[in-house]
């Protein structure tokens, strides 16, 4: 008896026992839920399994770039939802970062009025639920736009109204594919050039106008290629037929509202991150840079940002992740992202709650892991080398 007790006192044995107990407990809980679920589903006569994914969906998706049709399978519907989620997330991440960095820098402006306004923006955005923004942008934007008959026209190739922004699309995209390829090649050349210039500067101390050169080869040449491609193809112009503009590509107001809400909201959080990161750069660094006679723009670009980045990146990653997850708010305004089309429409038409919820959760987990993996990689590359 005493021996057994002493045996329990041993730290390692106790560690093992703790873990075994915890594992058994968790397995028991999961098994309990699974058993109930299968029992309840059989009793309720609810179909189960994943075969529903290959059934015809019959659900209309007004905004898709995947070429999805209602006669496609539910799997196709899911894919369209994922693409739409990524589309709005990526667009919003880019713009939120731009607004966030600007507001964060403005918050530190010497001009008192400017920094106060930036502060107002940050405090306003951070303390109101996102759902308000989504609804505000949606109904606010709708109310502000004209009806199709009184559309705003931009040179007769783009029309803006309550049904969205209709933009002319080329009928033949081959020229654009070539131009896009050319752009990618030029960007690659530009990167190589920048590396070479950096190495040369390190070696000889001579600066090379990378940006100017880069602009000429990376900006102007592809632009010309695109213009050439545009000249050679015919265009599918939006035309007012009956109620709406038909033809061309339509950017729906749901996308615009969700995109605007996500980017303005997340920008408030990014601004705070940026401000914190810049404040963490030691004062002496900036003074030293100034003493060397660097211009304010170069101080920001060469001294402040590189040193603030390691502080900024981890929290900004979690903001990006939040943004991706928050794109699910699109369900509230009929933007066809994953939650709306899959957890909404597909769930109601098939009734297979467990399978659909599991798939949706898995998709978000994969997205989250992908973003954090990318950011970890970026972070490890750009970590400040300290002595």
């Amino acid at each position: 008896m005493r021996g057994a007790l002493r045996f329990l006192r041993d730290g390692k044995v106790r560690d093992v026992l703790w873990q075994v107990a915890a594992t058994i407990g968790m397995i028991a809980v999961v098994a309990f839920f699974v058993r109930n679920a299968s029992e309840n589903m059989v009793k309720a006569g609810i179909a189960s399994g994943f075969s529903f994914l290959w059934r015809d969906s019959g659900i209309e998706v007004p905004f898709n770039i995947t070429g999805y049709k209602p006669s496609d399978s539910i799997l196709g519907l899911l894919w369209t939802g994922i693409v739409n989620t990524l589309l709005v997330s990526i667009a919003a991440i880019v713009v939120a970062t731009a607004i966030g960095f600007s507001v964060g820098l403005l918050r530190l402006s010497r001009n008192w009025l400017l920094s106060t306004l930036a502060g107002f923006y940050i405090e306003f955005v951070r303390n109101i639920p996102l759902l308000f923004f989504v609804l505000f942008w949606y109904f606010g934007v709708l109310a502000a736009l004209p009806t199709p008959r009184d559309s705003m026209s931009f040179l007769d190739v783009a029309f803006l109204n309550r049904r969205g922004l209709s933009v002319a699309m080329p009928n033949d995209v081959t020229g654009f594919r070539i131009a896009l390829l050319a752009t990618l090649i030029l960007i690659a050349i530009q990167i190589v050039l920048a590396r070479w210039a950096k190495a040369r500067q390190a070696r000889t101390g001579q600066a090379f106008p990378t940006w100017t050169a880069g602009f000429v080869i990376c900006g102007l040449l592809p632009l010309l290629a695109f213009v050439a491609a545009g000249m050679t193809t015919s265009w599918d112009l939006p035309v007012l037929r009956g109620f709406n503009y038909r033809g061309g590509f339509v950017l729906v107001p749901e996308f615009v509202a969700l995109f605007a809400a996500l980017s303005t909201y997340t920008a408030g959080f990014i601004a705070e991150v940026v401000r914190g990161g810049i404040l963490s750069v030691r004062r002496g660094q900036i003074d030293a840079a100034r003493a060397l006679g660097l211009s304010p723009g170069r101080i920001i670009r060469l001294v402040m940002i590189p040193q603030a980045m390691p502080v900024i990146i981890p929290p900004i990653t979690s903001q990006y992740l939040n943004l991706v997850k928050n794109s699910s708010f699109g369900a509230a305004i009929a933007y066809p992202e994953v939650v709306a089309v899959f957890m909404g429409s597909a769930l109601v038409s098939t009734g297979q709650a467990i399978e659909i919820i599991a798939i949706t959760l898995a998709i978000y987990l994969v997205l989250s892991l992908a973003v954090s993996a990318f950011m970890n990689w970026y972070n490890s590359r750009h970590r400040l080398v300290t002595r």
Partner: protein
Amino acid sequence: MKIIGFAALAVLIAGSAVAQQLAPSPTLDAVKARGHIECGVHLGLPGFSFANDKGEWSGLDVDYCKALAAAVLGDSTKVKYTPTSVQQRWPVLTSGQVDLLARNTTITFSRNATLGVNFQGINFYEGQTFVVRTKAKVAAVKDLADGTICVAAGSTEEKAAADWFRERNLKVTIINFQKNDDAISAYDQERCDAYTAGVGALAGQRIKFKDPAQHQILTEVISNDPQGPTTRWGDERWQLVVRWVLNAQIAAEALGVTSKNVDEMKKSTNAEVRRLLGVDGKFGDMMGISNDWAYNLIKQVGNYGESFERTVGMGSVLKLKRGQNELWTKGGLLFTPPFQ
């Protein structure tokens, strides 16, 4: 359960049944023990199920729930309502959070076959149509070609509208909202050219528009959407009660029994009336509820016709005509098997 059924049959055949053996009914037992019915209704559809600012519910579907409570518990006020959205309704029903749904839900094959739900009759023959702005000058549904239509996601209307236009090779854009009210306000903001729903539902939802006078409901109907109380699979005796309470509402109208004359009708010489009102036949016992079940529901809630007039008919703001929802004897589709 089958064994018990056979046993009951054997007892009956032996002719020695003093107290009737009934199949067990967990739902009915739960309702009696809890003292009220849990009724799943629409989030808010004037005329069918709608709560006013004091939280009092009214409407045709709500009346059905009240009738059920009067029949089972003897008191039409013993109902509690769970508002459900289009998405929530099935899990809420199949997981047992409500005893039944009475919420403008269209009966379809795939719902019956795969969702684990059963439909217990039809209390409203709905037909799908569209509401458009008067200034849009739309006379028929086909004029909506190239238009944009707002609809509640996961509803039968979503698919029916898509099918209708596709069949005719017409192109429309359909925007799916998670809730009816969201679709309505988006339509009202001119995001869409039309909003689609049933004729009855539209008559109720129309009053939610900023200016109802500027909208027009098309007379053309593109699909039939029979609707009625819905139960989950299993518990046949509960399904029996749900089905025959609806039949009793309809039979009462056909037999001329109203909430006003129900007491006199007890003295009626019509055999079916006497069985319905529990004077003869002990029909309540057979279902496991009191014999004056139909008397109670007619007395407290009224027959189908009374309920219809009060909630969606001429006595209401919706002003719907009986149309298909008239008795089969008067040219409608409303029908009940006999109380024999």
